[in-house]
């Protein structure tokens, strides 16, 4: 009986809330990294920009995924070198990723295969424009300057090339690849 009660939340689908902070040590790299961001200011800037550019037309519908979660996932994706799918899967299973996303309570629900779909992350990304991106970087820099961690007194500037990651498939490239395959 005790054993069944112990596993009740796994069997029944709901159970006690788990504290995410209990599972992520203070010295965990993702926790330390996540604690450096001024989340409140960043999320507020995103909300303000989205409200102006994409006003809500109807109050109906399911509640959206919090912007804090989506934004943290997007940043984590680059920090960990993961793909959209990978990072969304890790959010379901990795407590450190949950911590970075600002989730402090976790209630087990085995029927829920995912918290955030990769498509949702892609949709969020497509709403970010250049002005907002500049503002976010400025907010992060301002927070670091206020904390006395960095100073803009002496700066260095440079450029670097980034190659095009993927190119569209055209008839010419398809034929070229076919010819190359045949010759090899």
């Amino acid at each position, binding site marked *: 009986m005790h054993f069944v009660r112990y596993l009740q939340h796994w069997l029944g689908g709901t159970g006690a809330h788990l504290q995410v902070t209990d599972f992520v040590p203070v010295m965990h790299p993702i926790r330390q990294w996540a604690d450096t961001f001024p989340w409140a200011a960043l999320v507020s800037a995103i909300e303000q920009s989205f409200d102006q550019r994409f006003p809500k037309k109807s109050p109906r519908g399911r509640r959206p995924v919090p912007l804090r979660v989506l934004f943290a996932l997007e940043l984590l994706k*680059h920090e960990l070198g993961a793909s959209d799918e990978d990072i969304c899967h890790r959010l379901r299973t990795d407590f450190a990723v949950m911590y970075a996303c600002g989730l402090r309570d976790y209630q087990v629900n085995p029927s829920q295969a995912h918290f955030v779909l990769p498509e949702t992350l892609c949709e969020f990304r497509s709403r970010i424009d250049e002005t907002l991106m500049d503002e976010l*970087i400025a907010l992060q820099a301002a927070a670091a300057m206020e904390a006395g961690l960095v100073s803009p*007194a002496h700066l260095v500037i440079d450029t670097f090339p980034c190659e095009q990651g993927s190119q569209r498939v055209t008839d*010419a490239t398809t034929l070229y690849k076919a010819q190359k395959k045949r010759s090899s």
Partner: protein
Amino acid sequence: MRCFGRQCRGHGHVFVKLVRQTEQKLLALGEPITALGQHAQQLLAQATALSDATRERFAEAFTAAMRSHAHIRQQSTRLIHGQKLRHCKLVNAYDLTIAPILKGKSNCPTQFGRKPGIMSDPATGFLFAIRVPEGNPSDPSYVLPLLDNVQKAIERVTTPQRPRVHSMAGDLGINDTALRQALHARGILTVGIPKTVAPLTPNPSPEEVLDILNEAGLNRQRTPHQVHLACACGYSRPVVESHIASLLSRGAGQVRYKGHPGAVVQLGMTAMAHNGAVVVRIRQQRLSKRAQKFRRLLGLRHRKINEINNPKN
């Protein structure tokens, strides 16, 4: 078949005959677009039942369709009539989302992509601003927009003593007289930007310091100590390379998102993730000796707050 670029750097062949066949269909299909687009725009102006937002959306779609056809026609003219193309200029004639980069490797895969500019703190590598322009503009054109972004960040600081930009360092590419004058007008020293390939002086004599201040016209704004610091953190390729390497390790080497807005988002997020890692390093005191000394000189010493609050005695 026409070949672009050097043979030794891989095959850069484009099958002109095939492209011609494809584009003839595209051009035939899109021929009436200009006339139809103009007619539709006239009708759109007369349609009073539509809301302003809808009308604007339709107008943008029509303009984009007309522009797209014009682009194909222009590239087609270049390709068919045997007009010689510029070296490394074209790999996919009709893709609007890619931008050429003439610098970097010659006729290698990096010839197309983006050329972002970064403005960072030389001691720690913290990025204050990043800019991803369209196409491949000249290097000096990056400086003032990036500096404006840094200024916006400074304006957000609420502490009584607001930080200021004292000096700017860059490579020989941004050695531009007009740019130097613009920076001096903002009270920024340009000792870190070399004028020749000769190495910069890390320890200037008092006379040289005076010359630098006189040349910039900043006698009353900048102190000799600041000039010494500016000379010490002049442009150094290994320092900048380390900042770029950190960005590349976070996926900035390849633009995977679509178009210019995608590149802006990807590189912006990469820069923010990098900044987070830099702050962790600063908090943990994992900095080079040079960086620690530089931070000390700037008054950014690491304060052991816990030890002050809980003295041992």
